[in-house]
């Protein structure tokens, strides 16, 4: 057999192994998100100009009553688009009711806020601006402040025709839809690079889709079913039940996506768990004895190794999104 022939056979075998790197694991509907699946409002992708306007607004403290907070205060890109706090702090110094959720891959999401009270990213983007606890503005004040700035007058006129509160939401949402994380070690592993994840993370993937029952809720390309579950965090917050009096929503909160989750500690809707290890411990115990807990939450009996592997797998979902801060117009 010629050297060339041997070389070709070897090259073919290596190629086959790479392509089939994840073939041995049933990954239960997990995957890499496809930008073609993003549903834009009116099926229109935003322009670069609209995205830049949204990004500028996202960082502009004019949108808070005391000029001391922007969207990026609680959703800080350097802190995993969260704030590192258990519960956020409002423009007037109030401690907010819930943990600031991260913003990764919301372009694919269909419901927003921990209780799902917003049905679009546009609606969500405007909520904190006019919340009495958060940025404490009124729609009128927002428009008035923006009209005082030439940059905003020009950009809103070009993009939407006018400055309006609704158009502020459209611009911020257009920017938020660009916060996309889709090239983590897990995605590279799925694409065929069997060395992209550590052996521990690969074992963790098996636990995640199997014994750990994580994909009962954290499924799909963004590791969320966008659904609401009572996972047994026992506090007085009734969650989704505030909006829908169906019994299953008592104490239920939206399943957060897990991409870049290691960057956005602390965890749970009240920020009560500081590390992913604590989160895994919580689920392992199964919230036995907690009222209204979802039937999906049961004791897992994970070994110490399996718990460590789960955390290693979640760490393999990391693909940071670096945002260059815009120049805020004066």
């Amino acid at each position, binding site marked *: 057999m010629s050297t060339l022939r041997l070389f070709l056979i070897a090259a073919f075998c290596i190629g086959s192994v790479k392509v089939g790197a994840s073939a041995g694991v049933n990954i239960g*509907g997990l995957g890499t998100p*496809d930008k*073609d*699946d993003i549903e834009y409002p*009116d*099926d229109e992708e935003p322009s670069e100009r609209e995205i830049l306007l949204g990004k500028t607004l996202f960082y502009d403290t004019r949108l808070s009553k005391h000029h001391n907070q922007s969207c990026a205060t609680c959703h800080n890109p350097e802190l995993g688009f969260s704030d590192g706090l258990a519960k956020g702090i409002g423009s007037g110094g109030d401690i907010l009711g819930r943990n600031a959720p991260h913003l990764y891959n919301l372009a694919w999401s*269909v*419901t927003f806020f921990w209780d*799902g009270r917003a049905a679009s990213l546009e609606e969500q983007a405007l909520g904190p601006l006019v919340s009495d606890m958060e940025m404490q503005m009124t729609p009128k004040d927002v428009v008035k402040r923006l009209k005082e700035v030439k940059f905003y007058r020009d950009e809103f006129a070009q993009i939407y025709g006018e400055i309006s509160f609704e158009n502020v939401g459209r611009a911020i949402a257009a920017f938020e839809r660009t916060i996309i994380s889709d090239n983590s070690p897990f995605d590279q592993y799925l694409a065929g690079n069997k060395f992209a994840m550590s052996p521990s993370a690969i074992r963790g993937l098996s636990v995640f889709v199997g014994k750990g029952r994580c994909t*009962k809720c954290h*499924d*799909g390309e963004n590791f969320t*079913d*966008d*659904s*609401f579950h009572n996972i047994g965090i026992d506090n007085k917050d009734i969650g989704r039940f505030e909006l*829908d009096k*169906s*019994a*299953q929503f008592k104490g239920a909160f939206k399943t957060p996506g897990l991409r870049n989750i290691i960057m956005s500690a602390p965890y749970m809707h009240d920020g009560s768990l500081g590390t992913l290890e604590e989160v895994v411990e919580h689920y392992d115990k199964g919230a036995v004895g907690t009222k209204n807990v979802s*039937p*999906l939450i049961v004791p897992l009996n994970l070994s110490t190794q399996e718990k460590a592997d789960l955390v290693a797998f979640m760490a393999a979902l990391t693909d940071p999104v670096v945002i260059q801060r815009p120049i805020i117009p004066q």
Partner: protein
Amino acid sequence: MIKRMLALGLCMVFNAQAATLTGELTFVKKPPFAGILYAKNGAGPKAAELDQANKVFDKKVVVVGKNGEITFKNSDEFQHNIFANDPNSGVKFDVGLMNQGQTTKVSADWSENTLTRIGCKIHPKMRSYIANVNSDTYQVLPFTKKQKTYKIDLDAGSASTFVLQIPKYEPVEVTLSPGEAKSIEVMYKGKLRANLSLTLK
């Protein structure tokens, strides 16, 4: 002579029964979720079924006639709660929590020739549409994001007027004579979204 007239009549009936609507629907950009093309004739199905598994509905569009009965099934390991609250069709209902193996029925007692969005209160990504149409001749069009062109092939019977309905889009109604072909622009909020070409043979 009588025999000849009878034969001619039978031939005409046969021709009317055998009419076929063919054509293409081509989107300018990414297609939406789904649509339906139907002939304006008949009463529509008296019953239809929609199942749920792996957190998805098994059909993108379920077709039923006026006052027809839709049976919702839950073959999933997860609980579901089908509901409608569609401002476009004005339809509202909530079937309540469904466990695995449960079925429930809803009568389509609302305005005909409407598309109603339904979803699951527990899993907001789930969606399907109920097409409540007075038609026995229809073609459901389950669009996918990667495919822009879709073939129309409908056994049209004696129908000559056809309607294309896509959620949120302006409905398109076309009347064709046998042998006639037409091209129609499909609009959404005043913008061209697709071209529909139809031929009645």
